[in-house]
């Protein structure tokens, strides 16, 4: 019974990791690629680790698998945020299906104050 559950989890997890890989290749711009790689990848890795926990059903392995899942869940979004933000600041070109960009308006609105604060820090 445990083996069947573990098998289903492994196949689903493997499928989502595959989706993440195909997504990185196929999706049109970097921010959308981040969507595929971090999230589908996280879910896939989580499911595979869960399958390991089910298959071995030992306290040491379960606790390590759960801890790994917890740390993936904590670190993956931070990395995604950092890469996405860096890419945005680098001035990437969005694909043609992008219909709004509120962040651009915000940066333009606050550019004056930002420049001011940068100057102050340079003088320091």
């Amino acid at each position, binding site marked *: 019974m445990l083996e069947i559950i573990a098998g289903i989890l492994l196949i689903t997890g493997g*499928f*989502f990791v595959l*989706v993440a890989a*195909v*997504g990185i290749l*196929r*999706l*049109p*711009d970097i*921010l*959308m690629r*981040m*969507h*595929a790689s*971090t*999230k*589908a990848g*996280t*879910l896939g890795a989580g499911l595979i680790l869960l399958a390991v926990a089910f298959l071995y059903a030992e*306290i040491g392995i*379960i*606790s390590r698998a759960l801890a790994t899942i917890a740390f993936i*869940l*904590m670190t*993956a*979004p*931070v990395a*995604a*945020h950092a890469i*996405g*933000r860096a890419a*945005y600041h680098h001035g990437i070109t*969005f*694909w043609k*299906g*992008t*219909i*709004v*960009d*509120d*962040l*651009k308006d*915000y940066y333009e609105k*606050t550019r004056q104050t930002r420049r001011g604060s940068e100057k102050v820090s340079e003088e320091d």
Partner: protein
Amino acid sequence: MKIFLFNIILALIWTAVTGTFSFGNFLIGLVLSYAVLIVVGPAIDKSGYTRRVWKAVTLFLFFLKELFLSSVRVAIDVMRPGFRMQSGVVDIPLDVTSDLEITLLANMISLTPGTLSLEVSDDRKELFIHAMYIDEGVDHVRNSIKQGMEKHIMEVTR
């Protein structure tokens, strides 16, 4: 937070008293001490710990549901020939104020496929996210985040 430690310490005492130090027994201890805290909680704790535990569990289940549903949605779009989605950067007005709440919200947004948090405004009143599916309008994205995740987070932290 203090009361949460109290819960764990009571569970450890339970495992010590019963003499079997296993994970299952520790879980039983957690449930029993939670029951104790429901009874004596109002006398020693003003933060509503017993209520917030359930809200935290609800938040976690809600998050798992979102993670799975949107992963499936992204998977379908990745596999399907041609792209039919519309993406964009959307600003979301924030009702949450503390560091913990904003971090939690931004991380959960980043973890659900289809949305990625990019920036918090300097006055901490707006969160800018990149969304993959805004075919139903920008307001629909805003509402689903505000009514879903943000509401759940506020129920846990307040």
